[in-house]
């Protein structure tokens, strides 16, 4: 476990399965911020099993640091499981949306060809603008950005990365068994927040 061989930084994908609890995002974020480590991308959403959330976090660090951070995340109350993988170990995608003026797209055949070459598809077509979508690795979404820029790109947005681990049977079955044996607690949100006038205050 000596770390001389682990000084090379590379991109890692951390996958975290958690309870859907208020405040857990902060707890996980603090693990990075207190070490002054930047998170490159963070996606959190419900997993395929109700009540369990899945985080995908991307960071560039040494394997040793990532291992320690993953351990720190896993020990938080509310975290079910943490995996960390290099880019070679995962299938990953990011999605990007591009808003461009419709007249340019409609009038110039070359743009249409470029879009097709880049695997983009139209999500919305309006008189004034059209929104295209593409998914892929960073260089692919970047490439389309470069292509569309000369034609008057109005707006661009890219999603956080989502990743699926190649080399495993996945956590799906375990998650389901888990949820079946111990169903999750309901999240209790603040039900009084919008009833200010109606609630008696001392």
């Amino acid at each position, binding site marked *: *476990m*000596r*770390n001389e061989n682990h000084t090379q930084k590379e991109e890692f994908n951390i996958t975290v399965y*958690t*309870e859907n609890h*208020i*405040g857990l995002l*902060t*707890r996980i974020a*603090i693990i990075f911020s*207190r070490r002054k480590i930047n998170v490159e991308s963070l996606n959190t959403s419900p997993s395929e099993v109700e009540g369990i959330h899945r985080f995908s976090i991307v960071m560039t660090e040494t394997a040793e640091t990532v291992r*320690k951070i993953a*351990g*720190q995340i896993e*020990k938080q*109350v*509310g*975290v*079910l499981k943490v995996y960390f993988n290099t880019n070679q170990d995962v299938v990953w995608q990011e999605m990007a949306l591009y808003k461009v003026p419709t007249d340019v797209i409609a009038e110039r055949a070359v743009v249409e060809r470029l879009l097709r070459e880049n695997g983009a598809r139209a999500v919305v077509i309006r008189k004034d603008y059209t929104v295209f979508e593409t998914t892929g690795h960073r260089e692919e979404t970047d490439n389309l950005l470069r292509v569309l820029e000369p034609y008057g790109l109005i707006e661009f947005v890219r999603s956080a990365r989502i990743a699926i681990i190649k080399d495993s049977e996945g956590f799906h079955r375990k998650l389901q068994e*888990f949820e079946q044996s*111990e169903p*999750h607690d309901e999240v*209790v949100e*603040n*039900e*009084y*927040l*919008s*009833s*200010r006038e109606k*609630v008696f*205050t*001392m």
Partner: protein
Amino acid sequence: MLTKEKQATALPKQATSISGAEAVILALLEEKVDTVFGYPGGAIMPVYDALFDYTDRLNHVLVRHEQGGIHAGQGYARASGKVGVVFATSGPGATNLVTGLADAQIDSTPLVCISGQVYAHLLGTDAFQEIDILNITTPVTKWNYQVANAEEIPDVLAKAFYIAKSGRPGPVLIDITKNAQLQQFEFSGYQPCQHIRSYRPKPVVRQEYILQAAELINQAQKPFILWGQGVMLGAAEKEFRAFVEKSGIPAAWTIMGAGALPSRHPQNVGMLGMHGNYGPNVLTNECDVLIAIGMRFDDRVTGRLDKYARQARIIHLDIDPTEIGKNVPVTVPVWGDCKETLPLLTELVEPRQHTAWLQQFRRYNEQEIEAVIQEELFPTSEEMTMGEVVQQLNELTGGDAIVVSDVGQHQMVACRYASLNHTRSNITSGGLGTMGFALPAAIGAKYGAPERTVVAVIGDGGFQMTLQELGTIMQSGADVKLLILNNRFLGMVRQWQELFHERRYSFVDIASPDFVKVADGYGISGKSVSKREELRGALQQMLSHQGSYLLEVMVTKENNVFPMVPQGCSVSEIRLS
């Protein structure tokens, strides 16, 4: 004094409508809490109102500041092994808990803090005394949770106690909005928590690591045990002693581990780290197998990591797997509660006596006695030293007292020289180094172990950080002996300025009030001594006094704590002067 007619205090046997505040009190009773430290205020008033009916079953100690409350909770927990409980109101009440939470988090002290919060409908509106205490305390708690609906209170408190005390213990904060405290709900009883699906308090013990560890130990020529507070947190003192005695290995301690093996045990070779003993520090870099038990290789213990025990193969026993390999690369990671892992290991280790190796520690000890200890404990100088005060105290208490130390030079002296016959006898702020800790922690320790003598050893600087808690002693009658070692300096900073900043004594010359008069103002007897011939009698008087007592001892101004591993140096570069 206002009194209120006592109501029946039996717990409801079937579903009964009660308030959230009453549910808090019933939960504490079910968790067998006997003492709560706290300070009332607007947002926690319903809990205090409910408490008024249960004061015959639940002792409440009114502190003078919430920081005092939480340090008292820590002292209680450390002395008793139980969970410390603290009440605070919202806003400043809750923020005043932060230092104690951080202290308890780094020193793994089980606490349940209950803070009041503004009405739920006011959350996020900057209401009077509203603060986002959950986000403020997230980095310094093991777990925290906000309750806005009374129905959640029994389950949340059950989880809070379970999380605070299980696995590696730690502080938990439960923030309860005022409406939830006032709300009536159907209470159908209290179920203690035994399991949370997304929380694994301890890792599964892996037999292959026990086997590997035993093999390394059995082959070792110069094995060395380092132990920390984990031994006490796991209530594994007996198992630890059995392991030490069967294996015959010399063992040294971190300040948080002091007392788990009696000071006079023949295999106890002393204290580790920056102001630890000479032998254990030097020989860390000579041993062939290092067995770390319930300790976390803090930088104050290891000094420079790249020069720390590079020759040794390291076995690390810890309940928290993230501590293993965090700072020091480990050969064999033994995950688990040391109460379970130690007996498995003891079973497999061969009975040995490392006589020659132990002798090496003793030789270094003789050098240390000659260069440092003799003059510190039995000085020939005119002025008194901190060490001789602790030495005299040892003789008079016979090593049976709980010693609560504050932070600074006197802390290092108290930890180095206090004689401890029993476990849970050394209470100090180890990881955070919180000045002002000792006075309130000593109050808590007395409640946690009422049958024992509690002596707080405090510097003149730290004492002034929380001396308002003399009011708590006055009102509660806690029998705490306060021993102030006054060197008229912020001594540790001054020592560093002397050694590393060319004696530029920048703002370390601290003036103090007449402590005896201050204590007298609180109705606490006291005395100040500055002559050696008065010391023993004064200590005797303090110890035999009925009730709390303050003894100030004027010690030499510019005394340094040695040995010392200067910052940035290896442990084997420890200096004797």
